[in-house]
């Protein structure tokens, strides 16, 4: 059923704005002060702001459609308020009550003013009811979203702590991944690696997944995409630390690793990386080389002997 009567509603409520405000505040204040979190002056301010935005939106069009752009300011206000409540520690229900508790005073006013117009009363009551349902649901959705935001931010902070990119040698980076990888985390980590490759000019990166308990299709795909991206840029990747279980999972999932060098351990990958960058490790005191390159150290096989 369509919601109509916006302009009529705006008219009725504007005439009663002060009373509505007073009744509404009385109801909400009890809840808010129990929490001790929102002062009365602030509450009063929020309420009058909300009511004026609401009335403006209603007056703008007789057809009441919460999705239209004339409701944008109301949405923005509710989003702000809800986000704020979420951060202050209110429950989702308490936050939604900000909106729902205005319903009763409004409907009471409608009954008073439209006692001689039962058909209009029915229509407008429906409109108020549906509209407030939508407003209330919207605040709840934003509330949830804000909570998620906090969680995501915390996750990212943990992420930064737990996945540093390490430079093993000139031109060789290592990315030891620890813990479970979800799609979002893997993406961020991989973007970070590619950025480091550009910054350090590293020809080879070793992605070590020893510390990753399970790998699903999405994560495997992200790993492969990262290798593909690195290659497009002119670098290469080796994946190391593939445990037997993960090897099984990868085969069962049908993931194709034939173009990617994989090694069981980071150490083995490091040796390969060294070879590819034209270096190798010598044991100190080896007779032929001690005089040329000093004691234990890197022998650069690309230099002329």
């Amino acid at each position, binding site marked *: 059923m369509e919601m109509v009567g916006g302009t009529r509603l705006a008219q009725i409520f504007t005439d009663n704005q002060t009373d509505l405000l007073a009744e509404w505040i009385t109801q909400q204040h009890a809840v808010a002060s129990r929490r001790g979190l929102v002062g009365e002056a602030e509450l009063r301010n929020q309420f009058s702001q909300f009511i004026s935005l609401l009335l403006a939106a209603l007056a703008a069009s007789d057809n009441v459609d919460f999705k239209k752009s004339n409701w944008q300011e109301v949405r923005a206000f509710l989003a702000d308020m809800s986000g704020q409540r979420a951060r202050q520690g209110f429950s989702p229900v308490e936050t939604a009550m900000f909106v729902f508790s205005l319903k009763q005073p409004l409907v009471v006013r409608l009954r008073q003013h439209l006692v001689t117009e039962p058909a209009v009363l029915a229509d407008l009551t429906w409109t108020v009811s549906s509209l407030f349902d939508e407003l209330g649901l919207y605040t709840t959705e934003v509330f949830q979203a804000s909570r998620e935001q906090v969680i995501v931010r915390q996750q990212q902070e943990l992420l930064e702590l737990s996945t540093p990119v390490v430079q093993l040698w000139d031109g060789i980076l290592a990315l030891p991944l620890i813990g479970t990888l979800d799609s979002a985390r893997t993406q961020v980590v991989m973007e970070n690696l*590619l950025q480091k*490759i550009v910054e350090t000019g*590293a020809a080879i990166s070793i992605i070590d997944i020893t510390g990753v308990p399970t790998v699903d299709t999405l994560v495997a795909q992200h790993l492969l*995409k990262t290798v593909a*991206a690195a290659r*497009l*840029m*002119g*670098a290469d990747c080796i994946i190391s630390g593939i445990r037997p279980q993960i090897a099984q999972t990868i085969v069962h999932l049908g993931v194709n690793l034939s173009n990617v060098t994989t090694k069981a351990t980071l150490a083995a990958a490091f040796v390969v990386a060294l070879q590819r*960058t034209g270096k190798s490790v010598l044991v100190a005191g080896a007779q032929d080389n001690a005089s040329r390159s000093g004691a234990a150290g890197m022998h650069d096989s690309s230099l002329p002997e």
Partner: protein
Amino acid sequence: MERIPILTMGKLLLVTIQVDMHDRLALTLQDDLTSRIVKDGANGVLIDISSLDVVDSFIGRMIGNTAAMASVLDAQTVVVGMQPSVAITLVELGLTLSGVRTALNVEKGMALLTGGGAR
């Protein structure tokens, strides 16, 4: 008519693409490069795309075609400086640019073209 400048360094051609090219400009560059390879007897082409923050399938194909044509003319092509977000996007698009050699920067690209030892 605007053109992207092509520099010469010995037997190498160097192109730095610094503008967001419209399709016709990209095709003109492709033509200019192939003409110059023949005219200068160049055996290598270095294309620097480090300034490009967007490479879509058209530009991608143009790069691929240029490399293929250069190869037919016995010249090697190396594309350098691809930005990470561009690389990730091309992978998502499914554009593999197989047959195009790439390097992280001009220095490495030159090393590839001149067959030098530094890696």
